[in-house]
């Protein structure tokens, strides 16, 4: 029974491919959610035609679960369609609607073609509906995957951008931290700082937290770890750039830096570092 219905869906699709396509495109064009600002009619027409052509062909061959090999071309097409729509600025819902709006035209054909019992009609509608839903879900998943990929890449770029270690003077390093410190970033900060201490043979490292928006117990603990590791290697750390607001929150939260030297500004820290390394800054002109 099921087999017969499936076959007839394939037949109906093939027979009315042209009509379905026209109706589908008309529907997409007329839809309230159509984004004329984002996609051209020609492109929409091209995508729809390609998709339907593939669908008709595959349904003809092997109507199996959409994870099967045979569905690869359609999944690829939907994948790249999701990505391009994501880049164009469509929402996930609008992207899924591309596939979902195919239901109406196909259901219309099924209704006019299947002359048998209503049971047969319901069954074939159910069958096709299931398939389209799966494909729509796949579209949404591909869309999300694309989004996640973007987020992941940006995160990585942020980490790379925001941990420079600068040499201030002979034996004095500074690392200006910008952005929230989490354990992954602290790990990178720690590694780059320690490696730089070895490379330059510096005995003082200034950790400037002017760009860190908030200092809670966790951030403080991360900083203390970095300081402890630097100390183990024989370098002293000065934490600088503590803004008034941060000083207040830290005391309210009961966060303590222990015996780590803290300074309000980077200038103060540099001056202390000079003192400790035996350098003096003098003004040559009044």
């Amino acid at each position, binding site marked *: 029974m099921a087999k017969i219905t499936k076959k007839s869906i394939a037949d109906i699709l093939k027979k009315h491919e042209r009509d379905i396509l026209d109706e589908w495109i008309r529907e997409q064009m007329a839809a309230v959610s159509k984004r004329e600002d984002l996609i051209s009619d020609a492109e929409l027409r091209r995508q729809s035609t390609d998709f339907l052509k593939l669908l008709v062909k595959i349904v003809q061959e092997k109507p199996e679960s959409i994870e099967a090999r045979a569905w690869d071309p359609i999944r690829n097409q939907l994948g790249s369609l999701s990505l391009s729509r994501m880049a164009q600025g469509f929402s996930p819902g609008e992207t899924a609607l591309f596939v979902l709006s195919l239901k109406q035209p196909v259901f219309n054909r099924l209704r006019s073609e299947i002359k048998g019992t209503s049971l047969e009609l319901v069954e074939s509608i159910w069958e096709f509906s299931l398939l389209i839903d799966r494909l729509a879900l796949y579209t949404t998943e591909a869309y999300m995957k694309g989004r996640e990929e973007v987020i992941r890449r940006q995160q990585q770029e942020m980490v790379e951008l925001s941990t420079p270690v600068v040499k201030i003077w002979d034996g004095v390093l500074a690392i200006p931290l910008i952005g929230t410190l989490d354990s992954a970033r602290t790990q990178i900060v*720690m*590694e780059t700082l*320690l*490696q730089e*201490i*070895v490379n330059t*043979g*510096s*005995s003082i490292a200034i950790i400037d937290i002017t760009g860190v928006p908030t200092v809670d117990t966790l951030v403080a603990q991360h900083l203390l*770890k970095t300081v*402890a*590791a*630097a*100390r*183990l*290697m*024989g*370098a002293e750390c000065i934490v600088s750039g503590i803004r008034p607001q941060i000083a207040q929150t830290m005391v309210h939260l009961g966060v303590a830096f222990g015996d780590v030297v803290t300074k309000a500004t980077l200038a103060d820290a540099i001056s202390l570092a000079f*003192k*400790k*390394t*035996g350098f003096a800054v003098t003004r040559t002109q009044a």
Partner: protein
Amino acid sequence: MEHIPIIRIGDFLLVSIQVDMYDRLAMTLQDDLTRSIVKYQSKGVLIDITSVDVVDSFIGRMLGNIAAMSRVLDAHTVITGMRPSVAITMVELGLSLTGVMTALNVDLGIKLLHRQTGSWTGADGHDRDQV
């Protein structure tokens, strides 16, 4: 039995750890070192771990113990040349060796010891504690 050599430099003792430490060796080192401090009336101990690239909690504790023992015998301990990866591991293990002095290399370690024992101010005139 295997021993880690202890080199005497003036008032100080230099221990350079270049082999994998295991329990027995560490105990022998503690033994030899305390004996040498007493014998030579040393004022400072330098432990160079430049060639150590793996530490565990045992080695970490051993370093702390050696420092504490030297302290009791009135000698300062400086641990020198710890690698970044080792330092990170130690911190993650919760071994921050509080009370033990550290230096980037043996040279700086010796200068630090001189300052600590008040026997010499650095040749380059830089003295962190007296500025």
